[in-house]
């Protein structure tokens, strides 16, 4: 199983949540995972209900069975300083560079440098070993940029490698690319059962594949429970209104006669059922599109009341049951 798990997805599909649940799921049975954030949004801290994460690996959760989840919010500026320190022993000169704006400049303008630093840091955590030669983390899970940018983000090392033809950044980029294009890495895409996120998933997979980046799983998030099934929906189209009115009335919801309280509920309730049916058909179509991609497909339930820590553990359990870890 790949040790670097990259989670992407269209904006609004809940990829941070899925990444966090995956980190929890992979940490079960005494494993240790690192959850990495690269977009500086502190989404992980919000999700785990902790204060903003510093640029430092910090334990944020304990998984069932004694595993541990660490989290890291990578700040590209600090990563660059780190990096300069490592290669050049800059010391105070590094701070001077920062003051002059050189760090800002380098991370924002130098093509791809920012992304190399972000992916590089994650790859470093993947490869890191402790004194006994054991990997520091069993898995590294990255909450990555959205589907529309993921290939460029992961592949930017190629870009930089072509641009900075020599020098340490060039070497770093090469090293990072070797990890990212190997079976050590899997890129998962989070989607919803809606047309646009599914289309983006299909496009994203094609892009990843043409860049020879390893595609992992598709995770359908926020799947609504089935309230009415195909038989019910068939009946919705044919059932006489008066029968439904009588049924509502027998449940104690008022009169079934024309203008009665139960009778007046029939139209709005059937309208809602029609809307549900329309969505039901759409969802089935989208599920079929995803199935055709021939990748492992997982579904996570919607938490109507919103996501919280308990929900996160629930999702992790769900992922484990579906054999993701």
């Amino acid at each position, binding site marked *: 199983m790949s040790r670097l798990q990259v989670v992407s997805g*269209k*904006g*609004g*599909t809940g990829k941070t949540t899925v990444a966090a649940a995956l980190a929890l799921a992979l940490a079960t049975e005494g494993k240790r995972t690192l959850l990495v954030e690269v*977009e500086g*949004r502190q989404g992980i801290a919000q999700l785990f209900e902790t204060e903003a994460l510093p640029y430092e690996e910090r334990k944020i959760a304990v998984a069932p069975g004694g595993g541990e989840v660490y989290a890291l919010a990578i700040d590209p500026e600090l990563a660059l300083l780190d990096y300069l320190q490592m290669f050049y022993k800059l010391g105070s000169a590094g701070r001077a560079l920062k003051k002059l*704006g*050189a760090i*800002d*400049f*380098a991370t*924002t*303008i*130098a*093509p791809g440098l920012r992304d190399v630093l972000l992916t590089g840091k994650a790859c470093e955590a993947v490869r890191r070993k402790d004194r006994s030669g054991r990997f520091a983390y069993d898995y590294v899970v990255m909450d990555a940029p959205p589907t529309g940018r993921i290939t*460029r983000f992961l592949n930017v090392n190629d*870009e930089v490698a072509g*641009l*900075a*033809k*020599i*020098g340490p950044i060039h070497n770093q980029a090469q090293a990072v690319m070797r990890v990212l294009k190997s079976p050590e890495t899997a890129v998962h895409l989070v989607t919803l059962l*809606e047309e*646009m996120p599914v289309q983006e998933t299909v496009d994203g997979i094609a892009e990843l594949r043409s860049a020879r980046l390893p595609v992992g799983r598709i995770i359908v998030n926020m799947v609504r429970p089935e*309230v009415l*099934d*195909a*038989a019910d929906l*068939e*009946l*919705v189209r044919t*059932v006489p209104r008066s*029968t*439904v009115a009588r*049924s*509502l*009335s*027998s*449940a*104690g*919801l*008022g*009169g*079934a006669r024309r203008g*009665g309280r139960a009778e007046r*509920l029939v*139209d*709005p*309730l*059937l*309208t*809602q*059922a*029609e809307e549900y049916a*329309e*969505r039901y058909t*759409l969802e089935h179509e989208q599920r079929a599109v995803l199935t055709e991609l021939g990748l492992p497909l997982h579904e996570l339930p919607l938490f*109507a*009341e*919103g996501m919280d820590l308990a929900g996160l553990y629930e999702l992790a359990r769900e992922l484990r049951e579906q054999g993701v870890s």
Partner: protein
Amino acid sequence: MSRPDPAHTHDPARHHLPPARLLDIDPLLEDPKTRIVVCCGSGGVGKTTTAAALGLRAAERGRKVVVLTIDPARRLAQSMGIDSLDNTPRRVKGIDDSAGGELHAMMLDMKRTFDEIVEAHADPERAAAILGNPFYQSLSAGFAGTQEYMAMEKLGQLRARDEWDLIIVDTPPSRSALDFLDAPKRLGSFLDGRLIRLLTAPAKLGGRAGMKFLNVGMSMMTGTLGKLLGGQLLKDVQTFVSAMDTTFGGFRTRADATYKLLQAPGTAFLVVAAPERDALREAAYFVERLAAEDMPLAGLVLNRVHGSGADRLSAERALAAAENLEEPRIVDQEGGKAVLRNSPDTHDSSGSPTSETPAPAAAPASDGGSPAEDAENTERSVDQLTAGLLRLHADRMQLLSREQRTRDRFTALHPEVAVTEVGALPGDVHDLAGLRDIGDRLAANERELPETELPEEGTRPEASA
């Protein structure tokens, strides 16, 4: 849909406590003084669709409109029946032009826009040198901030051409709605900044005695950056910047000019959000930021709001009634759901209680059971269905009250912001009719969500049939 739209079945008498101002879209779109409408908001809230729907509505009300979209997902193109939009405005066919309006649409191609800037400002030889510069190529192909910068640039160009009465701008997809305002300046000041000037002009500085010290520091720094990035890259940057500088006259100045355009009269911002916590939090940030920058906010478009034509029936009562309907089944049916859902001849296959095969429950005149049995089965199927309808309604009511709470929180924070609510559609929009429908909903000026908690109606006795 033949049944009445739940969005339009609210009892107006209940709207006696409006907590927020209602946003009137049509006067905004029709006012000839409105020249630019910027749709902003966090990703995934329906910004592009809103921009397209507003564009269509304005055009069908007689204005000559161009919609600038930035989203690379090509959604706008699809919904407007144009296979692919590009960097040039294309006329959208099939709109109602009886009022004399026109609709044009385009999609920002940031590389193309950047190239055009270069081509417009440099002689052919110099332009070729810039376009071939490797640093320029990666900068223009997609860099943090380039998209936003080029969106602003394109907006400036469209406005300067003065061919359209109204420009509707969709903003780049980003998690943070504020990126649209901040990124161009950031990129502009980097390209124009002190650092890049020092990098590109060390010789000039060296000539002045007082700058000696700085120059020493600079060469140390260019040295470090050179080592880090490879000397060639730095040389590329220097060449690029000096070439651009002589021809273009400053990125920052240009970014500032477009920024001012956003503050000018005739520009209106619409913040787009969905009734969800995160989206409305972003919307609130944006509202505060616009106020701080003196940028005119027209209001909030609250998309994907759910309503119900039966919002007098509470979730609790619907659930209780559903249980009521499902109860007798437990008493007199052994096989459970399968027996109810399926015709009598499937009694044997009761191994799967939630059978996936579509049950012919609506066709009671099947072989097998006696007419009486069939009737009974039908009745039970209907009860089963009714219970499902009630559960569906309970879900809807719970969703509705969550959305209401989220919206009310926003309104409490920003009572000054006018709001228009757009009902959720079960499917996606991909044609002009769908866009027109959204335009109608945008302008309908109706509340989708109830204002206050409704009193429990079931406590009152009512004569039953």
